[in-house]
């Protein structure tokens, strides 16, 4: 009898296996949540970096760029580590519960493999989302020599940050199947609030 259920030997088989893993542990749902949450973190942190540098009178854009890159790397590693540790702990607990009920070792079953795969996917998403969001916000600063006006670069970066926040809100609105615009404005408000508080504190 053919034993084709343990390993995949072609791309369609691999994709089918991924689909099974997704069905078993709901990877896409968790990854989506982590993506939105951490991209949001990434954008707001970068807003902080931008406003801080602007208010401190930094007009040499290489400084906020270096701080921004360092911050996004730190956020990426924080996301990767944090998600890996929390997700693997959570998955191991769930697997142990299932093993206790079913009385069989689940580590080498499709459920065990799906759990390990979920930990990897979620960790990568959690690590990449804030770093990627921060890099997108920093684009006008990277193009600083071309824009040739630091204030305009800061403003454009701020505009991109607010647009990203609004986009994340739309994404969450789509996930919740409720008001897209409503969610968009809620996330946008967070960005505006962060900028406003920073400016108020900076003005003192």
């Amino acid at each position, binding site marked *: 009898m053919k034993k*084709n*259920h343990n390993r995949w030997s072609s791309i369609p088989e691999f994709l089918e296996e991924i689909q*099974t893993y997704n*069905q078993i542990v709901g990877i896409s749902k968790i990854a989506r949540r982590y993506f939105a949450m951490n991209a949001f973190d990434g954008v707001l942190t970068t807003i902080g970096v931008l406003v801080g540098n602007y208010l401190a009178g930094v007009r040499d854009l290489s400084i906020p760029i270096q701080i921004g890159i360092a911050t996004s790397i730190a956020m990426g590693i924080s996301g990767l580590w944090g998600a890996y540790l929390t997700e693997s702990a959570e998955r191991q607990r769930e697997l142990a519960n299932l093993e206790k*009920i*079913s009385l*069989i070792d689940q580590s080498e*079953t*499709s459920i065990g493999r799906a759990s390990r795969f979920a930990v990897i996917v979620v960790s990568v998403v959690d690590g990449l989302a804030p770093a990627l969001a921060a890099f997108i916000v920093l684009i006008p600063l990277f193009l600083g020599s071309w824009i040739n006006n630091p204030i305009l670069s800061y403003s454009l970066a701020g505009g991109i940050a607010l647009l990203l926040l609004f986009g994340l809100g739309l994404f969450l609105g789509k996930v919740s199947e409720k008001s897209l615009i409503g969610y968009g404005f809620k996330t946008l408000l967070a960005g505006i609030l962060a900028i406003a508080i920073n400016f108020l504190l900076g003005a003192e």
Partner: protein
Amino acid sequence: MDKGNLRRIVLDVLKPLEPDIVDLVRKISTLSGVDGVNITIYEIDHHVENAKITVEGEQLSYQDLKDMIVENGGAVHSIDEVAAGKRTVEEVVTHQD
């Protein structure tokens, strides 16, 4: 050595809710020799469910069927019915039944 033509296997299985029985029944149906499969759930718990799995075909392999169930997180509680030979013999009702 002729191992005998196993034609029907009925198992009592405890399995996790995911992968669900739609997925499992499809996978079992791909095993060689299988003509048809039926999975019936008779009890559902919080994380697991009890299923009666009936497989019919020609030259069935109990080991491969068991491997498939274990691979999908299930455990075989008992083998409730088997039939083998040139034709499938149904259970006979006797006066004692």
